[in-house]
């Protein structure tokens, strides 16, 4: 027993050492706010509306069909009447008119398709939703950028602040701090709203939370369904596990 303990201790010590060694040199810290996601239909519908009005002009969601929005409580007729701008059928994909090659000329980089953006933006700093929630709230005025906008979590971002009319205009105050390697690093001290938008801060945060909830839903529309089915699968397997265990014990008791 004591030998096994020794092995275990050695293992833990080594892994701890390796972890310490490795995390030491990880890149600049990315501080993300936890996204207060809400997956009720009202929030998702609000998010869908914001998405279609503010994002779908330049970004596509080309793996998602409009009629999938039935799953967040919209009828085909509602989709047709309120949301269908660029397509003619509710079964169509959420593509946009802009061609990728042209878009690349205008923005320097083609605006990425957003269908699975929430899944791709996950990292050890936080979920993809956290990243998006922080990103969409941390645009600030920067006259050095061609668009006049910059972003705290996505430096030198190519996209201008699409929802500035809602949030207003922010400026960022940075402080320089020692980075521990003899150099200096810029740290965000605070963001200040210098020109008010249509929404007060809390309302804007809520709107972004709804938008990010929708984008998260869109990344994997079957996620709710998946967990539901998963519960049943595990329940059946648990029952089967008990039965096969009893049967195994029953058959093996003949052996001696």
């Amino acid at each position, binding site marked *: 027993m004591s030998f096994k303990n020794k*092995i275990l201790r050695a293992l833990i010590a080594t892994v701890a050492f390796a972890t310490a060694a490795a995390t030491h040199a990880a890149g600049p810290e990315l501080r993300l706010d936890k996204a207060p996601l809400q997956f009720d239909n009202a929030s998702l519908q609000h998010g869908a509306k914001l998405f279609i009005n503010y994002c779908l002009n330049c970004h596509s969601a*080309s793996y998602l069909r409009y009629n999938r929005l039935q799953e967040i409580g919209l009828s085909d007729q509602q989709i047709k009447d309120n949301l269908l701008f660029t397509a003619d059928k509710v079964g169509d994909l959420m593509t946009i008119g802009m061609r990728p090659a042209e878009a690349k000329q205008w923005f320097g980089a083609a605006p990425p398709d957003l269908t699975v953006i929430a899944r791709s933006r996950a990292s*050890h700093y936080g979920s993809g939703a956290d990243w998006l929630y922080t990103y969409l709230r941390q645009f600030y005025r920067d006259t050095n950028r061609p668009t006049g906008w910059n972003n705290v979590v996505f430096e030198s971002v190519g996209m201008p602040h699409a929802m500035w009319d809602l949030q207003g205009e922010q400026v960022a105050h940075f402080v320089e701090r020692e980075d521990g390697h003899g150099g200096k690093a810029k740290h965000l001290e605070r963001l200040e709203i210098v020109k008010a938008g249509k929404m007060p801060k809390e309302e804007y945060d809520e709107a972004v939370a709804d938008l990010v909830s929708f984008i998260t839903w869109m990344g994997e529309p*079957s996620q709710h369904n998946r967990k539901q089915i998963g519960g049943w699968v595990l329940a059946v397997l648990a029952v*089967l596990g008990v039965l*096969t265990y009893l*049967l195994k014990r029953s058959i093996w008791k003949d052996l001696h």
Partner: protein
Amino acid sequence: MQKQAQQLLDWVDARFPLTFLWESQWGKYVAPKNFNFWYIFGSLAMLVLVIQIVTGIFLVMHYKPDASLNAAGVPVAFASVEYIMRDVPGGWIIRYLHSTGASAFFVVVYLHMFRGLMYGSYRKPRELVWLFGVAIFLCLMAEAFFGYLLPWGQMSFWGAQVIVNLFGAIPLIGEPLSIMIRGDYVVSDATLNRFFSFHVIAIPLVLIGLVAAHLTALHEVGSNNPDGVEIKKQPKDANGIPLDGIYSHPYYTIKDIFGAVVFLFVFAAVVFFMPEGGGYFLEFNNFIPADPLKTPPHIAPVWYFTPYYSILRATTSDFMLWLGIFVLVVGGLSVFSLRHQLAKLAAAGVTAVLLVAFYFLDAKFWGVVLMGVSVLLFALLPWLDRSPVKSIRYKGGLYKGILAVFVVCFVVLGYLGILPPTPVGTIVSQICSILYLGFFAFMPWYTAMDKTQPEPERVTWQ
């Protein structure tokens, strides 16, 4: 009714050895009765193979290996995966089963291999069982590598780019060889299509053949067990069956079914509740379509390759000196302990050639070699282990300690492989790489020195 069934069976048996195959391969295959928890992983590997083949067949019905861009500007292959995830009824379940199955395969196979290490399953007379197993492991790595390109995400693309470029490190033929593997100057549509072909038909065919060989060889020589004693050498009962042997059916049938259900419970928990496996089973960056002009800031292979990837990265030019010393020590020991004059000469020759080659060829090449060698070294185990006993139960503290160090090194290498390289991380992985190689290279000596306990006559059984 029963009589008619028997007649039908007789009719078949007269024309095809159905009953014979069933009885020799499973029904009346006599296995030791003292299998423990560790003996489930072989059956589980078979189960995962079936899951992968079945889900794979269905995925091929909807997936398109096409790197060209669709109207929305997304590669067709990438879009077809999302098509499966969204538009195909039941598609997401099938895809998650397959993507989780890939990781599950390696979990199960690594544990299966560790079982072999613990109980000496590779020792005589099971050398061929073991060699077929190593070949299966190689095939599995190839299969996983080819398959990982298919979603055509950023990790798919850059992972393939890096691995194919490894072949470029081979002197003289490297560059033309890597171009030939890709069928292009970069990883492209041609590469995607040939990898698809390898993944769905070429490698699986070989894999199934090897699995059949692995099982046939096993059922020929008989299974090892946690005590490492041969039940075939024991006294037999009136029917000629070893006293510690039992028929696989029904005993191991029901035990394996129970084990399979437990496995499926864990497997389903991942599939339905965390299919991304925290970014280790489905990497986050792979949700971005492949972009040949932009490498993601940090790329790492999928977790099951990272131990070997770490060994590759650890092989820097500084490391070559240590590797040289290591080879010199192993070579010297060999020359000293080999009995035949010719063998001594051969060992000295190989050592000298290696040292000269270390000096003249750059570290990049040796990293690739070392990575390959560290996988292939498993094949030599039957001839490296000199212990008088098979099972860890009767081996001494020396072997147990060294095996523990080996496992720790393997885990640490795997862990470091998923992180970006750091100076300290590189040193740690260099130490671990040397220890990993040492486990194999010094095995003939430490297994001979190890103080073992005598094996029992019969298997341990409560």
